[in-house]
């Protein structure tokens, strides 16, 4: 299953939610609750807690929708960030110390949606992504999983895996760079935006 068209629809959904349309929040839930639950469950490993995390995340999105900025990433990405942060907080036995505001602060790093990741989200399936991830060196994949699903910092990963912190941060960086390269769509395969009045090669008629 791919997700073509979701970012555009999500932007419209965000505007409706911002306007106080609860049905829009329901549509957002219908669209992503199953993925949000899978993510929460992967982190907390307990379904009861995972559903609580998903509940809290959607309510937080409703409350804080004003913080959503499309230029910094997708609504789905923001939602999953909130889900993941809250799930990690549950695992660590703290109440949600990473609220939407902090998650949004992290998202400030995303000054613009990265086309590689955005396109990958739109065109690949879970099984295809797993195939790509399986091509990463084991230690890089382990570091990525400890960081993303385990909520570990690179310093904690270094301690857990018995390597210097520089090695741990390097594994994360190199692993994601390889993932990016594997997911990158060849330029010739990307859709080309053609200015009005010009053909696909940029020539005026």
């Amino acid at each position, binding site marked *: 299953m791919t997700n073509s068209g979701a970012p555009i629809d999500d932007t419209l959904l965000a505007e409706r939610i911002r306007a106080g349309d609860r049905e829009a929040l329901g549509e957002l839930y*219908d669209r992503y609750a199953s993925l949000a639950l899978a993510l929460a469950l992967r982190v907390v490993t307990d379904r009861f807690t995972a559903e609580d995390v998903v509940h809290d995340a959607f309510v937080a999105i*409703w409350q804080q929708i004003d913080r959503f900025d499309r230029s910094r990433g997708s609504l789905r990405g923001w939602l999953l960030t909130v889900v993941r942060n809250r799930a990690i907080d549950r695992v660590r036995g703290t*109440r949600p110390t990473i609220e939407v505001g902090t998650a949004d602060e*992290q998202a400030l790093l995303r000054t613009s949606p990265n086309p590689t990741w955005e396109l990958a989200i739109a065109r690949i399936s879970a099984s295809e992504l797993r195939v790509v991830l399986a091509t990463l060196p084991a230690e890089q994949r382990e570091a990525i999983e400890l960081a993303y699903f385990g909520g570990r*910092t690179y310093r904690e990963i270094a301690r857990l895996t018995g390597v210097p912190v520089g090695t741990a941060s390097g594994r994360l960086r190199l692993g994601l760079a390889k993932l990016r390269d594997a997911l990158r769509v060849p330029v010739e395969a990307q859709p080309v935006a053609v200015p009005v009045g010009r053909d696909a090669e940029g020539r005026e008629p």
Partner: protein
Amino acid sequence: MTSPRQEALECAQVDELAGAAALGALDPDEARAITQHVATCDQPHAAFRELLGSDAVLALELDPMTPDPALRERVMASVAVTPQNHAALGSPARDSSPSVGRSWLDWSSVGLWRGLAGAAAAVVIALGGWNIGLRQQLAIQDAALSAIADVVIGGQPAHSVTGLAGSGYVIDSDGPGSTFLVAGLQELPSGDIYELWLLDAAGTPLAVGTIEVADPGLVVVALEQDLSGFALFAVTVEAERVDAPTGDPVMVGAIRN
């Protein structure tokens, strides 16, 4: 003033941590420092930026799981009584958006109020010794709140309650009644009080207590009502104790029975 060598080193450090930054695997101070660096640095940090957004892709590795249908109902019920944060707290019960206010007005118009027999006598215990340190350290406050909740509930689930007025937990007690722990309560205009409510699945509210003195530290309120059979816990601001809420909730939390 930063020397060119130092600046180059800082840029190199930032780029080295690109993967950790993209996955939120930095310590908070480090994340803030890198965010500030990238925002102000005249270097493009293209390699760094190219990894950002990768976290959203990793979640796609997972096979979606169908949630319990009741979860959607819980989410929508919570949303129905949760104001959106378009404005500061102020006088929350009176200034909230009409769309949210309707749901609370609907409660009273339905006329399904439970009786107020045994109206809750809220016992507010301000733990003064904690206050001075907690006022300025919200993170520590939150951790303390969670730890206390763990002690009080003895391993039972604590139901998170959040909103414009503060954050806390509502928890079942071993014996009769339940307990509300809240930290960071916003001050109210003189004379106003916080009123506490339990709602069943139909949205019928039952008054279960009040907090008359907002305390920015930790407040523990004994509620004379078990959580069993209720779907939501909510807090409103009232001019005095009332039988039906007059405004929007300033805090709300779902209860999983």
